[in-house]
């Protein structure tokens, strides 16, 4: 095992003992925009023509 890896993780784990309940990740809708962005980027990577206006509108 990498000693620095264990050193870092153990330090963080020791701090976690004080945390009673970790805050949750909130639900949000804004990521939908990015998922669409990734779909467009992915399409572009495959050589498909994308609608520039639609892409810019997402940003």
């Amino acid at each position, binding site marked *: 095992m990498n000693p620095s890896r264990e050193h870092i993780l153990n330090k963080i784990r020791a*701090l976690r003992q004080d945390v009673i309940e970790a805050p949750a990740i909130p639900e949000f809708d*804004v990521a939908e*925009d990015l998922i669409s962005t990734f779909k467009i980027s992915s399409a572009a990577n495959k050589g498909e023509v994308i609608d520039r206006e639609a892409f810019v509108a997402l*940003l």
Partner: protein
Amino acid sequence: MNHPEKAAEFLEDKENAKWHDETLWFVRDKRDVVSKTIPEWEELRETASQIKNNVLSNLDEYLVEFERNALANGIKVHWAKDAEEHNKIVLDILQQNDCKAIVKSKSILTEECHLNQYLEKNGVDVVDTDLGERIVQFLNQPPSHIVLPAIHLKKAQVSDIFHDKLNTEKGNHDPSYLTNAARLHLREKFLAAKVALTGVNFGVAETGEFVVCTNEGNADMGVHLADVHVACMGIEKIIPKREHLGVFLRLLARSATGQSVTNYNSHFRSPAKGKEIHIVLLDNGRTEQLGREKFKNSLKCIRCGACMNTCPIYRRSGGYSYGSVVPGPIGSILSPGIDLKKHSTLPFASTLCGSCTDVCPVKINIHEQLYEWRQEITKAQSSINAKSLAMKFANGIFSVPFAYKLGGNMMRGALKLLPHSITYSKLNTWGKERDLPELPNESFKDWYKKNKS
């Protein structure tokens, strides 16, 4: 020299100081305009803040998840507990690849580790490929701003530097001409480098990929031409899921430069055939900061620099006055955690106006943390200093009504009679930039007694 001394030096050139102030305010203004174009801006900030809260509370799990997925993708993962170990890991990778010259895109983390100096001492030529970073590298200076490294230099100064280093026409400070000269110069370096080094803006735990954001495409150029890519990442740069980039990328560009999106948001997931990707995960005091309840929020920082652009002190004192890798308000809450003695003046380099907190895309309570650091520093410093003695003396006077009345009468008389050289002596630092108010002939209490009807 401490911050006030360096700031005073910066302000000696009044014209330059005014230009610096106005230039950064221009960037701040752009940020305001573009952030208002999306109605969910405040929702984005709140969401980003909560995602980061979640990350900081589960950091060990996300790091392990990131490592597992990165390894599965064929990325080699290294862990460094401090800057020394980080630099050694990078040098070992270079030596294993018989590499004597690297190209590097902007990475504040490597500035933090003083990697350039370390590699150069060990016979490796390091070329910073971000244009601003290359300019300050020619001057052997560090960046003065984390996003705009050469913001303290005017184009005429850049022209002189390029004339000296790249043999451009003397006096030609046309930005297109200078940029083209830099492109030609850097192109040779890109083509020759076997190893390219980048920072990391976001590491995605669920996929083991990482994202590097640049406006010049220099990270991509370096990485795609080199056989080996070394990416250096602070452990706090983890985000849980790829979809969270939808929050952070939109906040980052708008907050940093007032753009709707950074020109290049490059995702690195696995090495191409015959190539290598290494990622170095660095602690270097971050776990200590995580353990400081009042200050751990500072680890939410995405290094956009918005707090610098808005800060009246940063704009009027320049990045170098802070004497730390990360200057400005965020640097003033990060740096004391690294070296309290060296950076003890930084939390006082603030008006506590709260503008930094207002613009922070991840809602770090920067001005409150600055105030907290002031208290920590006052406690840590020796109790015998001029300010604490003055406060003790004042406490003695204010707590005894007779002493307060007597002191007031004496000072009203004495200040009228004492010569200017004494009332404004070097011991009176308050009077350096201020004039005493006109002294009344009587106290308010006496005036009230006479005038109450």
